[in-house]
């Protein structure tokens, strides 16, 4: 073993004592030239692609814009557009992308009946069929499938039930989320049960995406989002339903307490405590105080104090006062206890006056900090 090592070291030394350096420098130079050449080719390719896109865009945009103005805004056409007049080669991928992009931009800015006509124009140009074709081959390219689903949702084009079902059960979570968003955009409230039932394995970002899709729709009803809360579900899924509950002010204290008691120090429990506060769960005020004494984690204690401040029924004033006056507690807890007392005004006004009279220098500094207008509260 040792002799092999000695042998290797001798070989390396011999290499550098001979022509080794020259060879090494030549190889390094060649690699460097190769690297920069590849970089330059990449940059040139990027600029060329961009240049071609802009070139085609500037050629197509005026023609397509005038066509839309003439057919939709002047002639009030709603379907059967003379698309042959445009003379566009839509089989050319670049031309197709540019036309799709321009019509998207129009749909995002022009609404009402004219917006519906634009959607029909999009379909009559054959983009809906293209998107339908792409979603049937979902395994081939996930990004294309997600893009096609977004297109179909924007144009409100129906998808065959069988295909939609396959997409909702896809092994790729991105496709499942895109299909869920499609359903929510096209069917609205009707799709809630079907979408929420199949939400498994989504990330927090995807949960946020679904939340945005729901709240941007026209839904204003009284759907029970809390029925989907479950201790066995992931944080992202439960968090989505809690966000929806808060947004639509659906208070279900039992459902939230089930999450809190299942795993007191989990992120889900913290979010549930937060939601209780935001939903002004007045019946939970005493229970939150009990939970504070049972809890050991600082994060949970802080959430409880914030929630008590938001609930603001005045029942926890003495409890919060005790915490604020306890100099053995961490400063963050005392600060939040005082903030929550302030938030419970007018119930807490006599207590706040009393506190002002008896506080020492440290506490007075804390009060000044909390009351400062630049300090954001909750």
């Amino acid at each position, binding site marked *: 073993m040792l002799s092999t090592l000695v042998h290797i070291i001798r070989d390396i030394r011999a290499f550098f004592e001979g022509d080794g350096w020259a060879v090494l420098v030549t190889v390094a130079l060649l690699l460097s030239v190769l690297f920069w050449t590849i970089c330059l080719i990449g940059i040139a390719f990027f600029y060329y692609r961009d240049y071609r896109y802009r070139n085609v865009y500037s050629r197509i945009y005026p023609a397509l*814009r005038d066509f839309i*103005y003439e057919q939709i*805004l*002047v002639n009030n056409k709603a379907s059967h557009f003379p698309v042959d007049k445009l003379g566009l080669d839509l089989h050319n991928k670049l031309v197709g992308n540019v036309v799709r992009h*321009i019509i998207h*931009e*129009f*749909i*995002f*800015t*022009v*609404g*009402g*009946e*004219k*917006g519906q006509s634009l959607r029909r124009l999009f379909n009559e140009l054959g983009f809906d069929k293209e998107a339908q074709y792409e979603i049937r081959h979902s395994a081939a390219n996930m990004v294309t499938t997600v893009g096609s689903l977004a297109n179909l949702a924007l144009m409100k084009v129906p998808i065959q039930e069988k295909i939609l079902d396959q997409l909702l059960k896809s092994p790729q979570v991105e496709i499942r989320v895109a299909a869920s968003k499609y359903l929510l955009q096209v069917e609205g409230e009707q799709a809630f049960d079907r979408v929420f039932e199949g939400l498994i394995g989504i990330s927090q970002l995807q949960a946020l995406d679904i939340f945005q899709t729901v709240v*941007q729709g026209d839904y204003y009803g009284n759907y029970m989002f809390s029925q989907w809360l479950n201790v066995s579900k992931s944080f992202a899924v439960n968090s989505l339903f809690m966000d929806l509950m808060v947004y639509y002010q659906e208070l279900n204290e039992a459902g939230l307490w089930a999450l809190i008691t299942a795993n007191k120090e989990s992120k889900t429990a913290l979010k549930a405590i937060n939601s209780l506060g935001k939903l002004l769960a007045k019946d939970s005020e005493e229970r939150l105080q009990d939970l504070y004494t049972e809890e050991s984690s600082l994060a949970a204690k802080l959430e409880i104090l914030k929630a008590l401040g938001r609930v603001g029924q005045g029942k926890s004033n003495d409890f919060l006062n005790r915490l604020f006056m306890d100099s053995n507690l961490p400063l963050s807890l005392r600060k939040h206890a005082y903030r929550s007392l302030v938030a419970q005004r007018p119930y807490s006004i006599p207590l706040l006056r009393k506190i002002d009279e008896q506080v020492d220098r440290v506490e007075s500094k804390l009060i000044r900090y909390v009351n400062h207008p630049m300090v954001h509260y909750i």
Partner: protein
Amino acid sequence: MWDKKKRILVVEDNEILLGTMQFVLLREGYDLLLAKSGKEALTLVSDESIDLVITDLALPFANGFEIIDRIRKSNTNNQVPVIIISGYHDDNSIVEGFEVGANDYMKKPISPTELISRVRLRIGHA
């Protein structure tokens, strides 16, 4: 005696929406002043006589709220009706829009027919 055409200032940075509004309003016979930024709009507000302002909220250099605020404080056009056209659909933006002095608020995507009706409601036919 010829009636002077009603003049509308349209402030919008989105080329497509600006073009569409320009097309439909010109067809209705209104005289238009176009601005793609808050700065351009503020210059036009102080220099020109205007009958109506249609403005977006998210604009480069000065946003829609600032434009309305400057209009209300200007000497020449402080009584001019203002219609906001915005992609912000939240209550806060709508309330703030009315608080700074807007007369109407339209959410994007806008219906051209509805836009014309609202313009006619404010300043009548061209």
